């Protein structure tokens, strides 16, 4: 197992190298002037463009720019972000906890609810439960995230004033800012920090702001898992060993949940692992609409304003998440299915 993990970690370096080359190549397709223009906002400033190109070596060959960039990031310098008005690494450290917090709540729901719904739908094929689950899943998958988020916001915030956008209420934000000794920000995630500080007002306020984003995220992302789990269950239920178990008189609950479900989980786990990465990436629209200053919001702004340091750094971070998620899936495979040997 240890050798396998070590091999995969080495492989991770290769993947990240590939991601960085790919992203760098895409960004290099923009002219030096266009990249320098990220610093220019008015015609009056246009005279700065040639200086910026020269200063940052934007007109140098691809490989020189890439090597320079690698040298810089190896020293922890990911460049300066104009959309965050701070060094890129600081911006990511500041924005990432918000995204993690959102996914910390949405992912367990997506995975447990998705597996459960898929299982129930598979077991009760072509019944009312199955049809309902499928329809809800299809609607969730088909709805554009931003539209669904806006609808929720219009109903539950605009109409009923229950669940506001953003991360935290103003008075809580003031309390945290004014009392750094009474409220320590251990993680940058308000629910967890609230619990660690024993301040339940902060916890409830943060949860209130999380309700709609989590509902949106779950509704949109869960559909894939439900469909995969349902198909997988249907396949398992029709296999010979299930028929044998039935012939032996094993009760239906045991057959479905102890035998079929365990085997049906394998493809679902593959998807679930992928969903972890997808969900983090998919926080973009949710964070944008609910104005949650997370990695997704940062990425939208960076991409639209060609803030190259941020685009590169977040791409690498997402690549890293994908690779780690896949590694975890591979390890989980071995745990769930003893037939699979990692070596």
């Amino acid at each position: 197992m240890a050798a396998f993990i070590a091999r995969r970690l080495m492989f991770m370096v290769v993947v990240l190298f590939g991601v960085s080359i790919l992203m760098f190549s895409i960004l290099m397709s923009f002219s030096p002037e266009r990249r320098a223009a990220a610093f220019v906002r008015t015609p009056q400033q246009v005279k700065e463009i040639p200086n910026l190109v020269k200063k940052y070596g934007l007109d140098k060959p691809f490989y020189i720019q890439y090597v320079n960039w690698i040298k810089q990031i190896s020293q922890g310098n990911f460049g300066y972000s104009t959309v965050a008005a701070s060094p890129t690494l600081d911006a990511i450290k500041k924005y990432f906890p918000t995204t993690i917090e959102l996914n910390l709540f949405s992912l367990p729901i997506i995975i447990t609810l998705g597996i459960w719904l898929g299982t129930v739908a598979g077991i009760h094929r072509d019944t009312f439960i199955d049809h309902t689950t499928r329809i809800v899943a299809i609607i969730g998958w088909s709805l554009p995230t931003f539209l669904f988020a806006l609808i929720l916001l219009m109903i539950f915030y605009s109409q009923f004033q229950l669940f506001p956008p953003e991360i935290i209420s103003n008075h809580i934000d003031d309390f945290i800012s004014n009392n750094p000794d009474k409220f320590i920000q251990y993680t940058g995630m308000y629910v967890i920090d609230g619990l660690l500080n024993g301040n339940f007002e902060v916890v409830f306020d943060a949860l209130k702001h999380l309700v709609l984003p989590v509902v949106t995220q779950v509704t949109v992302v869960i559909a894939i898992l439900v469909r995969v789990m349902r198909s997988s269950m249907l396949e398992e239920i029709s296999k010979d060993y299930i028929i044998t178990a039935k012939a032996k008189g094993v009760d239906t609950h045991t057959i479905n949940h102890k035998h079929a479900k365990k085997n049906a989980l394998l493809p679902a786990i593959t998807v679930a692992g992928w969903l972890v990465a997808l969900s983090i990436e998919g926080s973009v629209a949710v964070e944008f609409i609910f104005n949650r200053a997370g990695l997704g919001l940062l990425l939208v702004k960076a991409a639209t304003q060609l803030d190259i340091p941020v685009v590169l750094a977040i791409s690498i971070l997402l690549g890293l998440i994908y690779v780690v998620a896949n590694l975890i899936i591979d390890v989980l495979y071995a745990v769930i299915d003893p037939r699979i040997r990692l070596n």
Partner: protein
Amino acid sequence: MKKLHFFLASAFLCLMLVVPAGAADKDTIVSAIISTIQSMDPAKAYDDSSANKLYNIYDTLVAFKKTKTDEFEPRIATEIPTVANGGISKDGMTYTFKIRKGVKFHNGADLTPQDVVYSFKRNMITDAEGGPMALLLEPLTGIGNTRKDGKIIPGIFEKIDNSIEAKGDTVVFHLPKPFPPILGILTYTAGAILDKDWAIANGCWDGNIANAAKFNGPDTGKEPLHHITNGTNAYQLKKWEAGKEMILERFDDHWGKNAAFKTVRIKIIPEWSTRKMMFLNGDVNDMEIDAQYFAEMEKTKGIKLYKYPQLGVVCAMFTQKIEMTANPYVGSGKLDGKGIPSNFFADKNVRLAFAYAIDYKAIIKEVANGLGSIPANPIVDGLPYQKDTFHPQFDLAKVEEYLKKAHGGKLWKTGFKLTLLHNTGREIRRVAATMMAENISSLNPKFNIDVQAMDWGEYLTAIQQHRLPGFVVAWGADYPDPHNFVYPYLHSEGFYSKYIGYNNPEADKLIKMGIETASIDERRKIYYKLQDIWAEDIPGVTIIQKLGAKALSGHINGFNPNPMYQGTYTFYYQLY
């Protein structure tokens, strides 16, 4: 029992979550903006988001009087200098400002004339890349930059050092030549007054001119005052999470009337729907409105809406000497029906035809939702010395008439092919270019005009390379003086006029006279003539002067819409 506990805990949690939010704090203004605040260093901040915050934290010597762009009120100066009160020398080259006493910085230090002198020198010496300091360097040193080709211009720091001095309770500016718009420039945050000791302690220029070069042109984000402030104005910076929010708090030792609202919370909310919902729910009290959303806001009751002209103009420009080398926008490069020659737009008939092909009224009504007007020339409404001059109106018969005359009548027979350009994401510019293309192409099957969008950076670079035959651009005021508009559009070295190859020696001469003349009557005559020259030469055509729009909560009063400031700007200390 366990189930009961679980049920009660869940019920309590749900109850806590669904308790509606409390009423908005009436002592706080929440302002929603779209763009990131870039820097709090006055030598760097040149974007609207940053400048607006600096206006509320720092004081300048003078400021615009409420909604006026040609009247001033004293801030750190105690009176507006004039020739009559001796504040401006007769030759217009010396300005003396009496400095207010009893002014305290946010850190408790007293403001002195030495602080004022240091601030101007420090900001000009710093001259951060992409910053606003050219605005002060040009009138005070005669040179618009401290660097050329990345190297420091010899002697520039000595010129800066000699340009301003403290004399008793006054500060004196020495200009190398008269520069009448300087009072308008001094309202900008490039002239924010710093506390000298505090600035030096925080890594700014040390006060020794021999060391100036070490403090010049810091990298973006490395400017010493990027994240910290210490001004004298009504609000002080309490918290700034770059890219997220900024909190300003009332400064109770302000030299003037204290601000009515204790706290200003500025949030970046890029999505319009979210911003609007928060505004209507009372969670946001102040926001800029884009033209396309103004109509929907007009239907809302209990809010205050403002629309006011902005000192800016969108123009279509025609390059009279196009760079032809490997130029994809000129077809064959000849007047053979498959392209255009370098001097295609040098023929005034062609320029007039293109100008008559734009339906200006439709643009204002359909694209700008009525939030705009058609300016006769680049000296737009709100600037002094503005006058109405000839401006073409949409008329296809005129288009045909002028195209038949163009290039000695050859153009109508041979036809032509070219590309008009605009930068991406600007609807008015796209529509104007498309109108010219479609209307002209409809007259003769031999006329082929493509329209292409370019990214902003590439667009500006291509303009500088004289490669774009026709393009649509805009200019916003740095200061409210006609010079800031006639120079880029009519001077042979102006930003747009230079790159379209426009060169009228008489215009150059008048522009020079205009900026070096202090007499109002003389200037009026000069700028009237320049507007006539624009109408006669048609180097380009003005399309729209947009209106700025802003919404404030119903309970907030005191907003003064000023054409110099877009909807992004709010002087929070004026509100009550």
